């Protein structure tokens, strides 16, 4: 408790700013509607579509099973009690945090865009939470991803209430699997992943969070094959890319004032970034770099070509779902991704703190962390002039 109070006291300004921003929909709903919807008519079913997307994101996030973890020291020295109890507690917290966020988005969207069918919204939320709870208690199975993808697809297609009632019922019925106990090796793996996340967050080093590679059957005889293998090895990022491809056209429909260049550029960047983990790894790890003989410039170029193809595929999918095609967003996003993952190691001694809107920020650190996103934002800004709504 004392720790939380200390944290609250230290971060009071940040907390106030964040709470202020989050409370905007509750007393500035009309202004926000003007800002994001403008003179356009609000798309019927817009709030329901947003709810479906946030439910999809929440379920996908819970299915990552970040709650499955235990301190190896505790497993070694203090493993006498019911270790499953702690894991269940972690899952409850994970669900609570995500579904509070879902609730906030739904209420905000309701205030700005109009209220959806509330019993249906409640049924979908409850069945999604039940599905996530039951399946996150079991070992990973690829077909569980059908649930978040079905939710997102229903959102992008703006399907009618009958289909959504069927979806809610299907999710509830599909929540039948029973809990299965977790092995020690999974708990330790989860703990290590959590430590990595904590350290990355503390040092603002998001590149360490890019997904690790999985085996891929491909001879690595030239830099392009190496780049392709790096992308294929990160296929665990595919569900996120698909979810983004489904979400972005919905956001474009719901908030038509925002230029499609922003949705296309930001979406392609976020979808493709995890696939650049191979390039990031080889640039950052000296022991791995020694295996790869081509120059860094050649590796970057090969990665740029392969990632441009990946971004083009993603953009084509969003175009099929109704997002206006912004061709230059494709190479821009790929270039920004390469620039992001090949940035030099962060120098934490660089630059002094400056006051940014009441928040003290180490400017040297911020400049380094913006390497990559800076190119993307500048490029999208230019493109948005040519692709205005």
């Amino acid at each position: 408790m004392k720790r939380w109070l200390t944290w609250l006291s230290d971060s009071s300004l940040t907390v106030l700013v964040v709470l202020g921003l989050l409370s905007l929909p509750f007393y500035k709903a009309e202004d926000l509607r003007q800002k994001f919807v403008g003179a356009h008519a609000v798309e019927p079913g817009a709030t329901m579509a947003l709810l479906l997307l946030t439910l999809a994101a929440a379920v996908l996030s819970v299915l990552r099973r970040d709650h499955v973890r235990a301190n190896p020291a505790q497993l070694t020295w203090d493993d006498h009690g019911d270790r499953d109890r702690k894991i269940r507690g972690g899952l409850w917290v994970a669900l609570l945090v995500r579904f509070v966020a879902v609730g906030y988005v739904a209420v905000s969207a309701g205030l700005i865009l109009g209220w959806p069918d509330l019993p249906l919204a409640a049924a979908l939320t409850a069945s999604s939470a039940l599905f996530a709870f039951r399946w996150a208690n079991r070992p990973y199975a690829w077909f569980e991803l059908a649930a978040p993808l079905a939710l997102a697809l229903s959102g992008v297609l703006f399907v009618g209430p009958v289909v959504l009632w069927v979806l809610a019922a299907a999710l509830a019925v599909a929540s039948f699997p029973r809990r299965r106990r977790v092995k020690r090796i999974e708990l330790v793996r989860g703990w290590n992943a959590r430590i990595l996340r904590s350290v990355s967050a503390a040092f603002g080093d998001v590149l360490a969070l890019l997904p690790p590679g999985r085996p891929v059957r491909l001879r690595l005889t030239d830099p392009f094959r190496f780049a392709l293998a790096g992308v294929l090895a990160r296929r665990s990022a595919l569900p996120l890319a698909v979810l983004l491809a489904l979400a972005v056209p919905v956001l474009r429909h719901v908030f038509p004032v925002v230029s499609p260049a922003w949705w296309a550029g930001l979406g392609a960047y976020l979808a493709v970034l995890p696939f650049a983990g191979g390039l990031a790894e080889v640039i950052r790890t000296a022991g791995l770099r020694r295996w790869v003989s081509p120059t860094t410039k050649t590796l970057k170029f090969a990665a740029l070509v392969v990632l441009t193809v990946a971004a083009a595929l993603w953009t084509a999918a969003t175009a099929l779902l109704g997002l206006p095609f912004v061709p230059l967003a494709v190479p821009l996003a790929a270039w920004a991704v390469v620039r992001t993952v090949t940035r030099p190691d962060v120098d934490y001694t660089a630059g002094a703190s400056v006051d940014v809107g009441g928040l003290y920020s180490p400017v040297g650190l911020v400049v380094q962390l913006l390497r990559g996103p800076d190119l993307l934002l500048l490029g999208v800004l230019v493109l948005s002039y040519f692709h205005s709504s």
Partner: protein
Amino acid sequence: MLGRDVGRGVDEIISGTGVGVLVGDERWLFRDLDLAVPAGSCLALTGDNGSGKSTLLRCLYGLQDPTEGAVAVAGRPPDESDADFRREVSVLLDDSALFDEFTPTQHFDLLGVVEPEHGLPDVPARGLSAGQRRRLLLLGAFTKPHRVLLLDEPERAVDATGRTWLAGMITEAKAAGAAVVVASHFPPLVTAVADQVIHL
């Protein structure tokens, strides 16, 4: 403290004069160290843990500058950030790593060399045992074309048969004209391959 019985020759590929590394403000890890390793010979570094063997190897690879003195490797100051330098020097250091998702064959693809006979299973590196991973790292260092070979405790995690194989590989590298520096805690390996020994 230091063995300084090192020969000098016109074909020395690794050389150093008065090399010293200061740790903290006043503790010299080693000092006044002269090195001369000609082509086709092997210098072994021995000594207790923390005596400076790995630090000296890092200096020879350009990962760390000596506090005093100068070293030259393959005719230039060592600089691992220089691609031309890296092309001449092959290393096995503490930070050497494997791509966990790639098989041994894929690792040799990356090096652009013909895959040597190795007997390792064709599975991703994360599926190899500690000894097999070490063997793959060693094979990578030996197989990559080089004039200089720097090995930090190559015998670690290698079984008895592997250690015999290791001595044979170092001998082959010497026969091919490489200058080898090996830090080791394994006296039979030092005896088998070393032309000079520096005890730190």
